[in-house]
Protein backbone atom coordinates (compact mmCIF):
# COMPACT_ATOMS: atom_id res chain seq x y z
CA UNK A 1 0.00 0.00 0.00
CA UNK A 2 2.77 2.33 0.98
CA UNK A 3 4.58 1.46 -2.21
CA UNK A 4 1.56 2.20 -4.33
CA UNK A 5 1.06 5.60 -2.75
CA UNK A 6 4.59 6.53 -3.72
CA UNK A 7 3.62 6.32 -7.36
CA UNK A 8 0.24 7.99 -6.90
CA UNK A 9 1.14 10.88 -4.64
CA UNK A 10 2.93 13.11 -7.12
CA UNK A 11 0.60 12.71 -10.10
CA UNK A 12 -2.45 13.10 -7.87
CA UNK A 13 -1.15 16.33 -6.34
CA UNK A 14 -0.48 17.69 -9.79
CA UNK A 15 -3.95 16.89 -11.12
CA UNK A 16 -5.66 18.22 -7.98
CA UNK A 17 -3.70 21.47 -8.32
CA UNK A 18 -4.84 21.89 -11.92
CA UNK A 19 -8.45 21.16 -11.01
CA UNK A 20 -8.29 23.74 -8.21
CA UNK A 21 -6.78 26.24 -10.64
CA UNK A 22 -9.64 25.56 -13.04
CA UNK A 23 -12.20 26.63 -10.45
CA UNK A 24 -10.24 29.64 -9.28
CA UNK A 25 -9.61 30.90 -12.81
CA UNK A 26 -12.58 29.64 -14.84
CA UNK A 27 -11.59 31.68 -17.89
CA UNK A 28 -8.17 30.01 -17.98
CA UNK A 29 -9.54 26.53 -18.64
CA UNK A 30 -8.38 26.47 -22.27
CA UNK A 31 -4.93 27.42 -21.10
CA UNK A 32 -4.91 24.57 -18.57
CA UNK A 33 -5.94 22.04 -21.21
CA UNK A 34 -3.23 23.42 -23.46
CA UNK A 35 -0.67 22.95 -20.68
CA UNK A 36 -1.84 19.40 -20.08
CA UNK A 37 -1.61 18.41 -23.70
CA UNK A 38 1.66 20.18 -24.29
CA UNK A 39 3.26 18.63 -21.23
CA UNK A 40 2.51 15.14 -22.56
CA UNK A 41 4.25 16.23 -25.73
CA UNK A 42 7.19 17.45 -23.65
CA UNK A 43 7.32 14.22 -21.65
CA UNK A 44 7.73 12.43 -24.96
CA UNK A 45 10.69 14.61 -25.83
CA UNK A 46 12.10 14.29 -22.34
CA UNK A 47 12.33 10.52 -22.70
CA UNK A 48 14.40 11.10 -25.79
CA UNK A 49 16.46 14.07 -24.65
CA UNK A 50 16.44 14.09 -20.87
CA UNK A 51 16.76 10.36 -20.38
CA UNK A 52 18.59 9.03 -23.41
CA UNK A 53 20.43 12.19 -24.39
CA UNK A 54 19.23 12.29 -27.98
CA UNK A 55 18.34 15.69 -29.38
CA UNK A 56 15.71 15.80 -32.07
CA UNK A 57 14.90 18.90 -34.08
CA UNK A 58 11.87 17.25 -35.59
CA UNK A 59 9.47 16.65 -32.72
CA UNK A 60 6.53 18.38 -34.46
CA UNK A 61 6.58 15.52 -36.95
CA UNK A 62 5.63 12.99 -34.29
CA UNK A 63 2.96 15.31 -32.96
CA UNK A 64 1.66 15.61 -36.50
CA UNK A 65 1.55 11.84 -36.95
CA UNK A 66 -0.95 11.57 -34.11
CA UNK A 67 -2.90 14.69 -35.02
CA UNK A 68 -3.34 13.72 -38.65
CA UNK A 69 -4.09 10.08 -37.84
CA UNK A 70 -7.02 11.22 -35.71
CA UNK A 71 -8.05 14.02 -38.04
CA UNK A 72 -8.06 11.93 -41.20
CA UNK A 73 -10.10 9.26 -39.50
CA UNK A 74 -12.63 11.76 -38.17
CA UNK A 75 -12.87 13.75 -41.37
CA UNK A 76 -13.12 10.90 -43.84
CA UNK A 77 -13.78 7.55 -42.23
CA UNK A 78 -15.57 7.43 -38.91
CA UNK A 79 -17.10 9.42 -36.10
CA UNK A 80 -15.90 7.72 -32.95
CA UNK A 81 -13.47 9.89 -31.02
CA UNK A 82 -12.05 7.04 -28.98
CA UNK A 83 -11.22 5.11 -32.14
CA UNK A 84 -9.51 8.25 -33.43
CA UNK A 85 -7.30 8.33 -30.34
CA UNK A 86 -6.53 4.63 -30.57
CA UNK A 87 -5.63 5.08 -34.20
CA UNK A 88 -3.23 7.90 -33.33
CA UNK A 89 -1.50 5.72 -30.74
CA UNK A 90 -1.24 2.92 -33.29
CA UNK A 91 0.26 5.23 -35.90
CA UNK A 92 2.75 6.48 -33.31
CA UNK A 93 3.73 2.90 -32.58
CA UNK A 94 4.12 2.11 -36.27
CA UNK A 95 6.17 5.25 -36.91
CA UNK A 96 8.47 4.36 -34.01
CA UNK A 97 8.92 0.78 -35.09
CA UNK A 98 9.62 1.66 -38.73
CA UNK A 99 11.74 4.80 -38.41
CA UNK A 100 13.50 3.66 -35.25
CA UNK A 101 15.97 1.17 -36.69
CA UNK A 102 17.11 3.64 -39.34
CA UNK A 103 17.38 6.65 -37.05
CA UNK A 104 18.79 5.43 -33.77
CA UNK A 105 21.84 3.88 -35.35
CA UNK A 106 22.95 7.38 -36.26
CA UNK A 107 25.35 9.49 -34.30
CA UNK A 108 23.83 12.17 -32.10
CA UNK A 109 24.35 15.02 -34.54
CA UNK A 110 23.02 13.12 -37.51
CA UNK A 111 20.04 12.01 -35.46
CA UNK A 112 19.10 15.59 -34.68
CA UNK A 113 19.50 16.66 -38.29
CA UNK A 114 17.63 13.77 -39.84
CA UNK A 115 14.72 14.41 -37.54
CA UNK A 116 14.62 17.99 -38.72
CA UNK A 117 14.64 16.74 -42.30
CA UNK A 118 11.88 14.24 -41.54
CA UNK A 119 9.80 16.96 -40.01
CA UNK A 120 10.12 19.16 -43.08
CA UNK A 121 9.21 16.13 -45.16
CA UNK A 122 6.11 15.57 -43.07
CA UNK A 123 5.06 19.18 -43.53
CA UNK A 124 5.48 18.86 -47.26
CA UNK A 125 3.48 15.63 -47.27
CA UNK A 126 0.44 17.08 -45.59
CA UNK A 127 0.68 20.40 -47.42
CA UNK A 128 1.19 19.17 -50.95
CA UNK A 129 1.40 15.46 -51.66
CA UNK A 130 -1.56 14.33 -49.60
CA UNK A 131 -3.58 17.38 -50.54
CA UNK A 132 -6.68 15.42 -51.59
CA UNK A 133 -6.82 13.86 -48.13
CA UNK A 134 -5.47 16.63 -45.91
CA UNK A 135 -6.75 19.69 -47.82
CA UNK A 136 -3.30 21.26 -47.48
CA UNK A 137 -3.17 24.66 -45.81
CA UNK A 138 -6.95 24.87 -45.46
CA UNK A 139 -6.74 22.13 -42.88
CA UNK A 140 -9.28 19.48 -41.96
CA UNK A 141 -12.45 20.48 -40.14
CA UNK A 142 -14.51 17.77 -38.55
CA UNK A 143 -16.05 19.07 -35.34
CA UNK A 144 -19.56 18.42 -36.61
CA UNK A 145 -18.65 14.87 -37.59
CA UNK A 146 -17.58 13.85 -34.11
CA UNK A 147 -20.12 11.74 -32.26
CA UNK A 148 -20.67 11.96 -28.53
CA UNK A 149 -18.66 9.50 -26.46
CA UNK A 150 -20.16 7.67 -23.48
CA UNK A 151 -19.54 9.01 -19.94
CA UNK A 152 -17.53 12.05 -21.02
CA UNK A 153 -18.61 13.96 -24.08
CA UNK A 154 -15.24 14.93 -25.49
CA UNK A 155 -16.79 17.44 -27.87
CA UNK A 156 -17.58 19.76 -24.99
CA UNK A 157 -14.59 21.74 -23.72
CA UNK A 158 -15.39 21.38 -20.03
CA UNK A 159 -15.79 17.63 -20.36
CA UNK A 160 -12.64 17.40 -22.46
CA UNK A 161 -10.90 19.09 -19.56
CA UNK A 162 -11.74 16.12 -17.32
CA UNK A 163 -10.62 13.74 -20.01
CA UNK A 164 -7.31 15.60 -20.26
CA UNK A 165 -6.94 15.33 -16.48
CA UNK A 166 -7.45 11.57 -16.61
CA UNK A 167 -4.93 11.20 -19.42
CA UNK A 168 -2.40 13.37 -17.61
CA UNK A 169 -2.91 11.38 -14.42
CA UNK A 170 -2.36 8.06 -16.17
CA UNK A 171 0.64 9.35 -18.13
CA UNK A 172 2.22 10.82 -15.01
CA UNK A 173 1.81 7.58 -13.04
CA UNK A 174 3.32 5.69 -15.90
CA UNK A 175 6.12 8.21 -16.20
CA UNK A 176 6.88 8.07 -12.47
CA UNK A 177 6.95 4.30 -12.77
CA UNK A 178 9.23 4.47 -15.81
CA UNK A 179 11.64 6.70 -13.91
CA UNK A 180 12.04 4.04 -11.23
CA UNK A 181 11.96 0.95 -13.41
CA UNK A 182 14.92 -0.88 -14.84
CA UNK A 183 14.04 0.66 -18.19
CA UNK A 184 14.31 4.22 -16.91
CA UNK A 185 17.65 3.47 -15.30
CA UNK A 186 18.96 1.94 -18.51
CA UNK A 187 17.81 4.99 -20.48
CA UNK A 188 19.81 7.22 -18.19
CA UNK A 189 22.75 4.84 -18.18
CA UNK A 190 22.88 4.82 -21.98
CA UNK A 191 23.03 8.59 -21.97
CA UNK A 192 26.38 8.70 -20.20
CA UNK A 193 28.08 5.45 -21.17
CA UNK A 194 26.61 3.27 -23.84
CA UNK A 195 29.78 1.21 -23.99
CA UNK A 196 29.60 0.15 -20.38
CA UNK A 197 25.97 -0.76 -20.92
CA UNK A 198 27.01 -3.10 -23.71
CA UNK A 199 29.62 -4.66 -21.47
CA UNK A 200 27.03 -5.22 -18.80
CA UNK A 201 25.28 -7.38 -21.37
CA UNK A 202 22.47 -5.10 -22.49
CA UNK A 203 21.31 -4.75 -26.05
CA UNK A 204 21.56 -0.98 -26.24
CA UNK A 205 20.02 -0.86 -29.69
CA UNK A 206 16.80 -2.39 -28.38
CA UNK A 207 16.74 -0.07 -25.41
CA UNK A 208 17.11 2.97 -27.64
CA UNK A 209 14.51 1.64 -30.00
CA UNK A 210 12.08 1.14 -27.16
CA UNK A 211 12.66 4.66 -25.88
CA UNK A 212 12.26 6.12 -29.35
CA UNK A 213 9.03 4.21 -29.94
CA UNK A 214 7.66 5.33 -26.58
CA UNK A 215 8.45 8.89 -27.55
CA UNK A 216 6.54 8.44 -30.83
CA UNK A 217 3.48 7.00 -29.09
CA UNK A 218 3.33 9.72 -26.45
CA UNK A 219 3.85 12.51 -28.98
CA UNK A 220 1.12 10.98 -31.13
CA UNK A 221 -1.19 10.91 -28.10
CA UNK A 222 -0.56 14.60 -27.53
CA UNK A 223 -1.19 15.28 -31.23
CA UNK A 224 -4.44 13.38 -31.13
CA UNK A 225 -5.58 15.36 -28.09
CA UNK A 226 -4.86 18.60 -29.95
CA UNK A 227 -6.81 17.38 -32.94
CA UNK A 228 -9.88 16.48 -30.88
CA UNK A 229 -9.78 19.51 -28.64
CA UNK A 230 -9.60 21.99 -31.51
CA UNK A 231 -11.81 20.09 -33.93
CA UNK A 232 -9.52 20.90 -36.83
CA UNK A 233 -5.93 20.30 -37.91
CA UNK A 234 -3.75 22.20 -40.34
CA UNK A 235 -0.12 21.76 -41.40
CA UNK A 236 1.16 24.35 -38.93
CA UNK A 237 1.17 21.58 -36.32
CA UNK A 238 4.11 19.89 -38.05
CA UNK A 239 6.07 23.06 -38.82
CA UNK A 240 9.81 22.49 -38.26
CA UNK A 241 10.06 26.03 -36.92
CA UNK A 242 8.16 24.83 -33.86
CA UNK A 243 10.76 22.18 -33.05
CA UNK A 244 12.53 24.75 -30.91
CA UNK A 245 9.54 25.16 -28.61
CA UNK A 246 9.83 21.56 -27.55
CA UNK A 247 13.51 21.78 -26.71
CA UNK A 248 13.09 25.06 -24.88
CA UNK A 249 10.23 23.75 -22.77
CA UNK A 250 12.18 20.59 -21.96
CA UNK A 251 15.27 22.54 -20.95
CA UNK A 252 13.25 25.12 -19.10
CA UNK A 253 11.65 22.48 -16.91
CA UNK A 254 14.84 20.57 -16.26
CA UNK A 255 15.66 17.65 -18.54
CA UNK A 256 15.52 14.09 -17.30
CA UNK A 257 13.25 14.54 -14.31
CA UNK A 258 9.71 13.39 -13.66
CA UNK A 259 8.09 16.76 -13.03
CA UNK A 260 10.44 18.77 -15.23
CA UNK A 261 8.29 18.50 -18.37
CA UNK A 262 5.18 19.75 -16.61
CA UNK A 263 6.87 22.72 -15.00
CA UNK A 264 8.74 23.44 -18.21
CA UNK A 265 5.49 23.54 -20.13
CA UNK A 266 3.88 25.72 -17.51
CA UNK A 267 6.80 28.16 -17.52
CA UNK A 268 7.14 28.16 -21.30
CA UNK A 269 3.48 28.63 -22.18
CA UNK A 270 3.10 31.15 -19.40
CA UNK A 271 6.07 33.18 -20.63
CA UNK A 272 4.91 32.89 -24.22
CA UNK A 273 1.52 34.18 -23.16
CA UNK A 274 3.11 37.12 -21.36
CA UNK A 275 5.68 37.87 -24.03
CA UNK A 276 3.17 37.75 -26.87
CA UNK A 277 1.25 40.63 -25.32
CA UNK A 278 4.38 42.80 -25.62
CA UNK A 279 6.26 41.38 -28.59
CA UNK A 280 4.43 40.07 -31.57
CA UNK A 281 7.19 37.73 -32.72
CA UNK A 282 8.03 34.78 -30.55
CA UNK A 283 11.32 33.72 -32.28
CA UNK A 284 13.42 36.44 -30.68
CA UNK A 285 11.99 35.82 -27.22
CA UNK A 286 12.29 32.04 -27.45
CA UNK A 287 15.87 32.30 -28.70
CA UNK A 288 17.02 34.63 -25.96
CA UNK A 289 15.18 32.59 -23.35
CA UNK A 290 16.85 29.35 -24.41
CA UNK A 291 20.30 30.84 -24.26
CA UNK A 292 19.66 32.20 -20.79
CA UNK A 293 18.34 28.83 -19.62
CA UNK A 294 21.24 26.98 -21.22
CA UNK A 295 23.91 29.06 -19.54
CA UNK A 296 22.32 30.09 -16.27
CA UNK A 297 19.72 27.53 -15.22
CA UNK A 298 21.02 24.21 -16.41
CA UNK A 299 18.74 22.42 -13.95
CA UNK A 300 15.64 24.19 -15.19
CA UNK A 301 12.62 25.18 -13.12
CA UNK A 302 12.20 21.80 -11.46
CA UNK A 303 15.92 21.56 -10.78
CA UNK A 304 15.87 24.99 -9.16
CA UNK A 305 12.83 24.04 -7.05
CA UNK A 306 14.65 20.92 -5.93
CA UNK A 307 17.83 22.80 -5.04
CA UNK A 308 15.89 25.34 -3.02
CA UNK A 309 13.94 22.54 -1.36
CA UNK A 310 17.15 20.75 -0.45
CA UNK A 311 18.60 23.96 0.99
CA UNK A 312 15.54 24.58 3.15
CA UNK A 313 15.58 20.99 4.35
CA UNK A 314 19.29 21.07 5.22
CA UNK A 315 18.82 24.39 6.99
CA UNK A 316 15.90 22.86 8.89
CA UNK A 317 18.09 19.93 9.84
CA UNK A 318 20.93 22.23 10.91
CA UNK A 319 18.67 24.35 13.10
CA UNK A 320 17.13 21.22 14.60
CA UNK A 321 20.60 19.99 15.44
CA UNK A 322 21.72 23.27 16.94
CA UNK A 323 18.54 23.32 19.05
CA UNK A 324 19.36 20.00 20.70
Amino acid sequence: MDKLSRYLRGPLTLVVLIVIARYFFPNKMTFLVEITTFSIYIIANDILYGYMGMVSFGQPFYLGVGAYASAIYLAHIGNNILVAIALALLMGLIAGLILGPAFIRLRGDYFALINAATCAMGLFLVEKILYPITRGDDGLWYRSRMHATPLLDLRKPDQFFWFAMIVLFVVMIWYTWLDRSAMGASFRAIKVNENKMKFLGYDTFKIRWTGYTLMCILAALAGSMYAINYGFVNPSITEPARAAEVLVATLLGGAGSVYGPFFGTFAFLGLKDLVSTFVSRWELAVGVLTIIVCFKFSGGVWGTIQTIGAKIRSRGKASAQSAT
Partner: protein
Amino acid sequence: MDKKPVLMTQGVTKRFGDFVAVDRVDFDLQEKETLGIIGPNGAGKTTFINILSGFYNPEEGHVFHDGKDITHLSAANRVKMGILRTFQLVHVFDNLTVYENLSLSYFRKKENKPFTLKMFFSSLRQPGIASRVQETMEMLELDHLKDEIVGNLPLGSKKRLELAMTFVSDPAVVIFDEPFSGLGDQEIEEVIDVFRKYIHDKTILLIEHKVSKLEEFVDRLAVMHEGRIICCGDCESTLNDPEVRRCYWKLET
Protein backbone atom coordinates in the same frame (compact mmCIF):
# COMPACT_ATOMS: atom_id res chain seq x y z
CA MET B 1 43.43 -31.12 -9.17
CA ASP B 2 41.61 -31.58 -12.42
CA LYS B 3 41.16 -28.13 -13.90
CA LYS B 4 39.72 -27.28 -17.28
CA PRO B 5 40.37 -24.16 -19.35
CA VAL B 6 37.52 -21.65 -19.10
CA LEU B 7 38.90 -19.28 -21.67
CA MET B 8 41.29 -20.28 -24.38
CA THR B 9 42.73 -18.72 -27.52
CA GLN B 10 44.45 -20.31 -30.48
CA GLY B 11 46.70 -18.30 -32.78
CA VAL B 12 44.86 -15.04 -32.23
CA THR B 13 46.22 -12.20 -34.36
CA LYS B 14 45.12 -8.59 -34.66
CA ARG B 15 46.69 -5.99 -36.91
CA PHE B 16 46.22 -2.26 -37.12
CA GLY B 17 47.45 -1.43 -40.58
CA ASP B 18 50.99 -2.80 -40.75
CA PHE B 19 51.37 -2.94 -37.02
CA VAL B 20 50.77 -6.36 -35.51
CA ALA B 21 49.31 -5.61 -32.10
CA VAL B 22 48.63 -9.20 -31.12
CA ASP B 23 50.67 -11.89 -32.79
CA ARG B 24 49.51 -15.56 -32.86
CA VAL B 25 48.75 -15.79 -29.17
CA ASP B 26 47.90 -19.17 -27.64
CA PHE B 27 46.65 -18.82 -24.16
CA ASP B 28 44.41 -20.51 -21.63
CA LEU B 29 42.77 -19.51 -18.39
CA GLN B 30 41.92 -22.34 -15.97
CA GLU B 31 38.90 -22.48 -13.73
CA LYS B 32 39.24 -20.70 -10.38
CA GLU B 33 42.68 -19.38 -11.07
CA THR B 34 44.01 -15.87 -11.11
CA LEU B 35 46.24 -15.18 -14.05
CA GLY B 36 48.18 -11.98 -14.49
CA ILE B 37 49.48 -10.71 -17.79
CA ILE B 38 52.25 -8.17 -17.54
CA GLY B 39 54.16 -6.35 -20.20
CA PRO B 40 55.33 -2.86 -21.08
CA ASN B 41 52.98 -0.32 -22.62
CA GLY B 42 52.29 -1.16 -26.22
CA ALA B 43 52.90 -4.86 -25.75
CA GLY B 44 49.35 -5.59 -26.93
CA LYS B 45 47.79 -6.45 -23.57
CA THR B 46 44.78 -4.20 -23.93
CA THR B 47 44.22 -5.22 -27.53
CA PHE B 48 44.34 -8.83 -26.42
CA ILE B 49 41.63 -8.44 -23.80
CA ASN B 50 39.61 -6.35 -26.21
CA ILE B 51 39.60 -9.46 -28.37
CA LEU B 52 38.68 -11.66 -25.43
CA SER B 53 35.78 -9.42 -24.44
CA GLY B 54 34.41 -9.00 -27.95
CA PHE B 55 35.44 -5.41 -28.56
CA TYR B 56 37.40 -6.40 -31.67
CA ASN B 57 37.28 -9.45 -33.86
CA PRO B 58 40.71 -10.99 -34.44
CA GLU B 59 41.92 -11.36 -38.01
CA GLU B 60 43.15 -14.86 -37.38
CA GLY B 61 42.70 -17.46 -34.70
CA HIS B 62 39.90 -18.46 -32.38
CA VAL B 63 38.63 -17.72 -28.91
CA PHE B 64 36.98 -20.51 -26.91
CA HIS B 65 34.87 -20.40 -23.80
CA ASP B 66 34.19 -23.75 -22.10
CA GLY B 67 35.15 -25.42 -25.36
CA LYS B 68 32.75 -23.37 -27.47
CA ASP B 69 34.06 -21.13 -30.24
CA ILE B 70 33.04 -17.56 -29.34
CA THR B 71 35.37 -15.73 -31.74
CA HIS B 72 32.57 -13.88 -33.48
CA LEU B 73 30.17 -13.51 -30.59
CA SER B 74 29.14 -9.94 -29.71
CA ALA B 75 30.25 -8.34 -26.47
CA ALA B 76 26.73 -8.48 -25.03
CA ASN B 77 26.46 -12.21 -25.71
CA ARG B 78 29.79 -12.87 -24.05
CA VAL B 79 28.57 -11.04 -20.99
CA LYS B 80 25.58 -13.37 -20.97
CA MET B 81 28.00 -16.29 -20.83
CA GLY B 82 29.55 -14.69 -17.79
CA ILE B 83 32.64 -13.05 -19.25
CA LEU B 84 32.84 -9.60 -17.69
CA ARG B 85 35.48 -6.94 -18.01
CA THR B 86 36.44 -3.62 -16.53
CA PHE B 87 38.10 -0.74 -18.31
CA GLN B 88 41.39 0.96 -17.74
CA LEU B 89 39.62 4.24 -17.09
CA VAL B 90 36.74 4.00 -14.67
CA HIS B 91 33.50 3.25 -16.51
CA VAL B 92 30.48 3.82 -14.30
CA PHE B 93 27.23 5.67 -14.84
CA ASP B 94 27.86 9.11 -13.40
CA ASN B 95 24.24 10.23 -13.47
CA LEU B 96 22.86 7.27 -11.53
CA THR B 97 23.11 6.45 -7.85
CA VAL B 98 25.43 3.78 -6.51
CA TYR B 99 22.44 1.53 -5.92
CA GLU B 100 21.15 1.98 -9.46
CA ASN B 101 24.56 1.25 -10.93
CA LEU B 102 24.79 -2.02 -9.07
CA SER B 103 21.22 -3.08 -9.58
CA LEU B 104 21.45 -2.47 -13.33
CA SER B 105 24.40 -4.81 -13.41
CA TYR B 106 22.66 -7.43 -11.31
CA PHE B 107 19.33 -7.09 -13.09
CA ARG B 108 20.87 -8.32 -16.31
CA LYS B 109 22.33 -11.31 -14.56
CA LYS B 110 19.09 -12.11 -12.79
CA GLU B 111 16.96 -11.93 -15.90
CA ASN B 112 19.77 -13.22 -18.08
CA LYS B 113 17.84 -12.24 -21.18
CA PRO B 114 16.49 -8.79 -20.31
CA PHE B 115 13.39 -8.84 -22.40
CA THR B 116 12.53 -5.26 -23.09
CA LEU B 117 8.95 -5.38 -21.85
CA LYS B 118 10.09 -7.03 -18.68
CA MET B 119 12.40 -4.09 -18.00
CA PHE B 120 9.35 -1.88 -17.81
CA PHE B 121 7.60 -3.92 -15.25
CA SER B 122 10.62 -4.50 -13.08
CA SER B 123 11.49 -2.12 -10.35
CA LEU B 124 15.16 -2.00 -9.46
CA ARG B 125 14.05 -1.81 -5.82
CA GLN B 126 12.44 -5.26 -5.84
CA PRO B 127 13.55 -7.47 -2.93
CA GLY B 128 15.31 -10.05 -5.11
CA ILE B 129 17.67 -7.42 -6.41
CA ALA B 130 17.88 -5.26 -3.31
CA SER B 131 19.18 -8.04 -1.05
CA ARG B 132 21.97 -9.07 -3.38
CA VAL B 133 22.97 -5.47 -4.07
CA GLN B 134 22.93 -4.68 -0.38
CA GLU B 135 25.17 -7.66 0.31
CA THR B 136 27.67 -6.56 -2.32
CA MET B 137 27.63 -2.98 -1.12
CA GLU B 138 28.42 -4.10 2.38
CA MET B 139 31.22 -6.32 1.14
CA LEU B 140 32.85 -3.45 -0.68
CA GLU B 141 32.02 -0.83 1.95
CA LEU B 142 29.77 1.11 -0.34
CA ASP B 143 26.53 0.89 1.64
CA HIS B 144 26.89 4.31 3.21
CA LEU B 145 27.00 5.77 -0.32
CA LYS B 146 23.91 3.89 -1.49
CA ASP B 147 21.87 6.86 -2.70
CA GLU B 148 24.73 9.14 -3.73
CA ILE B 149 24.97 10.21 -7.35
CA VAL B 150 28.10 8.52 -8.63
CA GLY B 151 29.36 11.62 -10.40
CA ASN B 152 29.96 13.27 -7.02
CA LEU B 153 32.13 10.46 -5.65
CA PRO B 154 35.93 10.43 -5.46
CA LEU B 155 37.81 8.26 -7.91
CA GLY B 156 38.65 5.55 -5.39
CA SER B 157 34.97 4.97 -4.59
CA LYS B 158 34.14 4.89 -8.28
CA LYS B 159 36.75 2.23 -8.83
CA ARG B 160 35.36 0.20 -5.94
CA LEU B 161 31.92 0.61 -7.44
CA GLU B 162 33.13 -0.67 -10.77
CA LEU B 163 34.59 -3.73 -9.08
CA ALA B 164 31.33 -4.18 -7.20
CA MET B 165 29.38 -3.95 -10.46
CA THR B 166 31.47 -6.83 -11.70
CA PHE B 167 31.23 -8.99 -8.59
CA VAL B 168 27.53 -8.41 -8.04
CA SER B 169 26.57 -10.51 -11.03
CA ASP B 170 28.82 -13.38 -9.94
CA PRO B 171 30.60 -13.78 -13.28
CA ALA B 172 32.30 -16.91 -14.58
CA VAL B 173 35.35 -14.96 -15.75
CA VAL B 174 36.42 -11.42 -14.93
CA ILE B 175 38.97 -9.53 -16.98
CA PHE B 176 40.53 -6.54 -15.25
CA ASP B 177 42.27 -4.04 -17.49
CA GLU B 178 44.94 -2.28 -15.41
CA PRO B 179 42.81 -1.95 -12.30
CA PHE B 180 45.37 0.29 -10.61
CA SER B 181 45.91 2.81 -13.36
CA GLY B 182 45.23 6.40 -12.46
CA LEU B 183 44.85 5.67 -8.76
CA GLY B 184 46.83 7.08 -5.86
CA ASP B 185 48.68 4.84 -3.38
CA GLN B 186 45.86 4.94 -0.87
CA GLU B 187 43.30 3.96 -3.49
CA ILE B 188 45.52 1.19 -4.82
CA GLU B 189 45.67 -0.25 -1.30
CA GLU B 190 41.88 -0.21 -1.18
CA VAL B 191 41.59 -2.07 -4.46
CA ILE B 192 44.22 -4.60 -3.44
CA ASP B 193 42.26 -5.16 -0.23
CA VAL B 194 39.19 -5.95 -2.29
CA PHE B 195 41.17 -8.37 -4.41
CA ARG B 196 42.64 -10.14 -1.39
CA LYS B 197 39.18 -10.80 -0.06
CA TYR B 198 37.26 -11.91 -3.11
CA ILE B 199 39.62 -13.13 -5.69
CA HIS B 200 40.46 -16.61 -4.45
CA ASP B 201 37.55 -18.71 -5.71
CA LYS B 202 36.99 -16.79 -8.91
CA THR B 203 38.40 -17.07 -12.39
CA ILE B 204 40.26 -13.89 -13.05
CA LEU B 205 42.50 -12.39 -15.68
CA LEU B 206 44.48 -9.33 -14.64
CA ILE B 207 46.42 -6.98 -16.87
CA GLU B 208 49.09 -4.74 -15.40
CA HIS B 209 52.33 -3.28 -16.54
CA LYS B 210 54.07 -3.56 -13.21
CA VAL B 211 54.58 -6.94 -11.63
CA SER B 212 55.04 -5.67 -8.08
CA LYS B 213 51.35 -5.32 -7.35
CA LEU B 214 50.36 -8.68 -8.74
CA GLU B 215 52.87 -11.04 -7.23
CA GLU B 216 51.01 -11.63 -4.01
CA PHE B 217 47.72 -12.87 -5.42
CA VAL B 218 48.21 -14.34 -8.89
CA ASP B 219 48.50 -18.09 -9.38
CA ARG B 220 50.17 -17.83 -12.73
CA LEU B 221 51.93 -15.04 -14.51
CA ALA B 222 52.28 -14.45 -18.24
CA VAL B 223 54.53 -11.93 -19.91
CA MET B 224 53.56 -10.22 -23.10
CA HIS B 225 56.09 -8.60 -25.35
CA GLU B 226 55.60 -7.12 -28.81
CA GLY B 227 52.27 -8.83 -29.29
CA ARG B 228 53.36 -12.29 -28.14
CA ILE B 229 53.07 -14.14 -24.87
CA ILE B 230 56.70 -15.06 -24.34
CA CYS B 231 56.32 -17.00 -21.13
CA CYS B 232 53.59 -18.33 -18.91
CA GLY B 233 53.91 -20.20 -15.64
CA ASP B 234 53.97 -19.69 -11.91
CA CYS B 235 55.28 -16.40 -10.69
CA GLU B 236 58.74 -17.38 -9.74
CA SER B 237 59.66 -19.41 -12.81
CA THR B 238 58.24 -16.78 -15.12
CA LEU B 239 60.23 -14.03 -13.53
CA ASN B 240 63.37 -16.10 -13.72
CA ASP B 241 62.85 -17.09 -17.33
CA PRO B 242 65.87 -15.91 -19.33
CA GLU B 243 63.85 -14.49 -22.20
CA VAL B 244 61.62 -12.58 -19.82
CA ARG B 245 64.67 -11.18 -18.09
CA ARG B 246 66.09 -10.09 -21.37
CA CYS B 247 62.92 -8.50 -22.78
CA TYR B 248 61.24 -7.19 -19.74
CA TRP B 249 63.50 -6.32 -16.88
CA LYS B 250 65.70 -4.41 -19.18
CA LEU B 251 62.76 -2.14 -19.85
CA GLU B 252 61.46 -2.07 -16.32
CA THR B 253 64.63 -0.99 -14.56
